[in-house]
């Protein structure tokens, strides 16, 4: 097995920085999206489905829709508040 002798030949077979950085950014974004989804799902289930029935009623469905929108909005409000505090 030949692992490549000189330092420059092993560098040539490694992915470029740009490729690595893009992959890292993509994976971080994916992870963030998955975590965000899980939190919103849990919060909105807790808020909107106090007593689970045999199906989701139309008012429960509306509640979930609004809950998702409000939670996204809340994230924006909190994000702004944190950045403002950092600037004081």
């Amino acid at each position, binding site marked *: 097995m030949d692992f490549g002798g000189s330092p420059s030949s092993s560098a040539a077979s490694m992915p470029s920085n740009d490729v690595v950085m893009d992959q*890292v950014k993509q994976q971080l974004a994916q992870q963030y999206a998955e975590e965000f989804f899980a939190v919103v799902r849990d919060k909105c289930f807790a808020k909107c489905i106090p007593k689970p029935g045999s199906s989701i009623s139309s008012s429960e469905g509306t509640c979930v829709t609004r809950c998702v929108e*409000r939670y996204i909005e809340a994230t924006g409000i909190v994000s702004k508040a*944190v950045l403002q505090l950092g600037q004081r």
Partner: protein
Amino acid sequence: MDADQKRASFELQQFLEQEKQKAMLNELVAKLTEVCWDKCVTGAPGAKFSGSESSCLTNCAQRYLDVSGLVVRKFQGMQR
């Protein structure tokens, strides 16, 4: 390492440090949003936030960070 490799390695290190900072900030915002949602959005979610819900969220986030600072200073005081 030759000069190109050193430069590439430094660029990558800087990038990773930046992404780490961004991720930590995102984590802080996510944690604050969870805590402040529970404190401030107590009823059914509406079609938009009321003024009091909005200001509650802002105040909650900032007071949480203030408390964080107070606790740190208290601990530091207790170590002397």
